[in-house]
Each structure stands twice: as structure tokens, then as C-alpha cells.
């Protein structure tokens, strides 16, 4: 009797372990891993007749030989990087203000105020920008009222509008990690930096920014990925000429029903996104698990 419960308990624990492991394995394999493997396989085949496929790299060669695809790809990547950098530059002073200048109730209130817009759907936020920027919109109206222009100006459907929308949409994902890491920086370190004769710029560069690096990195990675994979904002604010790569994927899949080509585009976007995230982590020597959680 004395030995039995122990072994029973152990088998119970083993069983419990397998019961915990099974669902996560099912989830990851059926919804993440197998779909991506299948997408790779689909991207590597070519339709030769109805329901007849052959192995081929043609979908990838098509991408590299057709300038429209190639240009859209590079353009999406460059604009995403610019949007990420601008988001960081705009968000950093505000995050610093919330984390280090304010304290107590105002700090909490301002932080929550930062979060509010992001409880609302991205669609609504983009819609707001459409109303502001369109020809009959508020910005155009305000400019006319001020006498700066004498006729309505169309501010929608250009790259600046896309950029404003992307930055706006990404702001939360930058502010939250920044405030969190800056919050953990001891104020006395900043004071010590000044006491030792450092200038504002110097203190910023050698104390604040190194401390905030994990937050900066996780903010940048999340913002970059969200921007790269964004469909809504470029389509609505950029109009027909927005040339965003996710639109190409959508067109191939849904409009042209060319799944092979669309799958190849999907893989390329995934590779690009992983590559840039990996580079970012390497350059700043951060670990993936630490940055993500």
C-alpha cells in the first residue's frame, strides 16, 4: 500500500502531462505548421492542366521577372521600415513623458488615454482619417477657412496618407512596451548621470536608451510586422495606387484565383518579415522569447 500511491501518482502526472501536451500540439500542427508547409508546397507547383500539377519554380521566377511584383515588394518593405522608425521617433518622447515626468494619477490617466483609440477597430480609426483627409474633409475645409488654399484639396490616396494611417494604427504597440521599460528605469540613475556632468543628450544616449532597448526592440518588431502585413490602411487610404504587397496576395488568391502565385507571394512576405525581425534581434543582441513576452 505504501509503494502503490506513489507510482499511481506518477502515472497520473504522466497522463496529465500528455493531456496538456496534446491540445497545443494539435493547435500548432494543424493551424500553424501544416498550413505553412502546404503553402510552400502549393507555391512550388505549376498547373499544367485541370487538376494536373508539376513541380516548378515558375511562381518565384515570375515574381523576379515581373517588375510590378518586385517593386511592390520593395516598396512595402521600405515604407514599413520608415513607418516603424517614425512611430518610434514620435512615440518615444511621449512614452518618456508618461513614464518619467508624470507620476501618480495623471500618469495612469494619460497612459489609459493612450490605449483608448486602440480599443476601437482599426477600420473605424482608418475611417476617421478618411473623413479628415478627403477632398470634402475637415483638413481641406480648415485650410480653406484659414485662407491657405482657395479650393478643396484631396489629401487622400497618396503615400503620405498611407504613412499617417500606418503610424496612427501602430502607435499603441510602440507606446506600451516603451512606457513599460522606461518605467522600470530608476530616476536616480538619470540624476546620477547629470551629477557626473553628462548633458541631456549624453544621459539619453548612455543611460535611457540602453535601458529602454528591449522595449524599443519589441515595439519596433511588432510595429514592423503589423505594418508589413497591413491590408486595410493602405487599401483605404492609398486607394487604387497604394501598391501594398498584401494586396497582391489578396488579388492572386481571391480575384484571380491563382493560388500557386499567391502562395509564393505569401512565402516571400513571410521570409522578408522573418529576415528583418531576425536582423533586428541580431543587431541589438536581443532574444526572441524575451522580446515577445
Amino acid at each position, binding site marked *: 500500500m505504501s509503494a502503490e500511491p506513489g507510482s499511481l501518482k506518477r502515472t497520473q502526472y504522466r497522463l496529465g502531462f500528455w493531456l496538456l501536451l496534446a491540445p497545443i500540439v494539435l493547435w500548432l500542427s494543424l493551424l500553424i505548421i501544416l498550413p505553412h508547409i502546404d503553402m510552400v508546397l502549393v507555391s512550388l507547383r505549376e498547373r499544367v492542366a485541370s487538376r494536373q500539377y508539376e513541380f516548378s519554380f515558375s511562381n518565384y521566377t515570375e515574381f523576379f521577372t515581373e517588375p510590378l511584383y518586385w517593386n511592390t515588394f520593395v516598396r512595402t518593405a521600405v515604407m514599413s521600415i520608415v513607418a516603424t522608425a517614425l512611430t518610434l521617433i514620435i512615440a518615444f518622447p511621449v512614452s518618456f513623458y508618461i513614464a518619467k515626468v508624470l507620476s501618480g494619477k495623471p500618469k495612469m490617466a494619460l497612459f489609459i488615454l493612450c490605449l483608448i483609440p486602440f480599443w476601437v477597430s482599426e477600420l473605424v*480609426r482608418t475611417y476617421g482619417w478618411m473623413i479628415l483627409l478627403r477632398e*470634402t474633409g475637415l483638413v481641406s475645409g480648415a485650410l480653406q477657412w484659414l485662407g491657405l488654399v482657395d479650393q478643396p484639396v484631396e489629401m487622400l490616396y497618396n503615400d503620405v496618407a498611407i504613412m499617417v494611417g500606418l503610424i496612427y494604427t501602430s502607435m499603441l504597440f510602440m507606446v506600451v512596451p516603451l512606457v513599460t521599460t522606461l518605467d522600470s528605469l530608476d530616476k536616480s540613475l538619470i540624476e546620477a548621470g547629470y551629477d557626473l556632468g553628462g548633458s541631456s543628450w549624453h544621459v539619453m544616449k548612455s543611460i535611457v536608451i540602453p535601458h529602454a532597448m528591449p522595449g524599443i526592440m519589441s515595439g519596433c518588431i511588432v510595429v514592423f510586422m503589423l505594418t508589413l502585413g497591413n491590408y486595410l490602411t493602405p487599401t483605404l487610404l492609398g486607394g487604387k495606387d497604394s501598391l501594398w504587397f498584401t494586396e497582391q496576395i489578396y488579388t492572386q488568391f481571391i480575384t484571380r484565383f491563382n493560388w500557386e502565385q499567391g502562395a509564393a507571394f505569401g512565402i516571400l512576405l513571410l521570409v522578408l518579415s522573418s529576415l528583418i525581425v531576425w536582423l533586428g534581434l541580431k543587431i541589438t543582441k536581443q532574444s526572441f522569447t524575451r522580446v515577445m513576452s
Partner: protein
Amino acid sequence: MIPSISSSRFYRASYLCYVVLFFIFLITPLLVVAAFSFNDSLFPSLPWNGFTWDWYLGSKEPRLGLFHDDALLESIGVSVQVAIVTTLASLALATCNAFLFEREQFPGKNFLYVLMLMPLVVPGVILGVSILVFSSTVANWFEVQFDYDFEALRPGLVLVTLGQFAFITTIATLVISARLRKFDVTQEEAAMNLGASRLTAIATVTLPFLKPALFGAGVVAFLMSFENFNTTLMLVGSDAPLTIAMFDRLREGSTPVLNAVSVLLMVGSACLALVSLFAQRPDKQ
């Protein structure tokens, strides 16, 4: 730079100014959307023609208000259904995952953890597309092998739910794991010393401790599902959830009824935010 360091008045004033401008930038689009839902005009744009309730209460075309617009109301219903199922499923799996990662030691744990984070790194459009490709491969296989049309694996609400579940689970897992990590295991052991079985101990001691996290993760999961667009767009069939229905109307150009829906969404989100704030308050002490 910080209050305890002296700085010029000009510096402080301009810093404050910047922060104020930032918040104006943040809030203006939302205010504008809300304001134009009351504009007495067929288009959500200037000029301002005076106040009206038509975009909420109007009952006939072209001034069909939100509460009489059956297509929109139906799509809200669809979104709520999808969101409830996604939330419950992802909470259940996320709780399992949290126990697995916080309590168990096994080879390959770190690898599995990294894999678990993957859905966050995959852009939503690609997640949707990959599930679309795979499910139709499986459905085609069923059709060829058994001559059976696996309806659920064709674009539609089942796939939409699965697609959202695929990445929302990761977020819920992170939230619940963080809370479980703070739990003192000796409490569970105490319950077991007092004669409770392991499952009873978890149900009566650990799960109540996790409640704020479960609730918080649930609210986030519900909102993320309700507002999801990218993944949903690739997997949607004939029943459109709200975001898809709104997107179609936005592209066509619509009456301010869309502003009214937006206001409804804002009010809904605000209520959820308040509820979750209150629910998590005792936790912060």
C-alpha cells in the same frame, strides 16, 4: 529631463506642447467619426447641415439608420457568435498551455515555447491564406477519397473562427501564464495535504487565483476576434462579419450609417474596457 532635474521653461513648455499635440492626433479621428454620425447629410463629410438622429433611427432608404439596417445588424450578430466561440476555445487552450509551460519540465520545452509564439510573427493575411490553402487541400482529399464534400473546410465561419483562434490563443496564453507564474504552488500543496485531489486543488485554489487573468484575456480575445480583419478577409464565405461588411461599404462609399456603427463599437469597447479595469482592480492592491 525629469522633474528633479532643472530645465528651462521654454524646454518644459515645448515638451508639454508636443505631448498635447500627440493626444490631439490620437483622439481627433475618433471624435470626427462620432461627430459625423449626427450630421444631417447623406455623406460623412462637410458641410455640417445640422443635427439628426437619422443615422441611428431612420427607417427608410436612403436614410436607413443603424437600428433598421438589417444587413449591418446581421453582420454584428455574426461577429458576436464568432467572437464568443473564439474566446471560449482560446481561453480553454491557453489555460492548458499556461499549466504546461509553467508547471511541466520536458525536453524541447523551449522549442515548443518559441513555436507557440510563432502566430504573433506571422502576418494576419498570411495566416489566413495558409489556413485557406491547407483546409482546401484537406477538403479536396476528402472529396477524392470518399466523395464527400467537407463543407466546414470551405471558406466560411468555421474557418474564420479557426483562423482567429490560431493567433488569439497565443496572446491569451501569454496573459494567463504571466499570472500563473505569480501563483504560490504551496497553496495548492496545502489543499492536497488537506485531502483534495490534484484536480480539486486546481479547481478550487488555482483557477480562482487565475480569474482576473482569465477575464482580462477573455476581454482581449473577444475584442481581437470582433475587430479582426486581415485573417477574416481571407477565410470569409457568404456570411460577412461586421468588419468585412463595413469594409465593403467603405469602399463603395456609404452614408453616415457607418459612423453610427462606429459609435456603437466605441461605446461597446469602452464598456468592455471599464469592466475589465474594475475586474482587475483588486489584483493591483
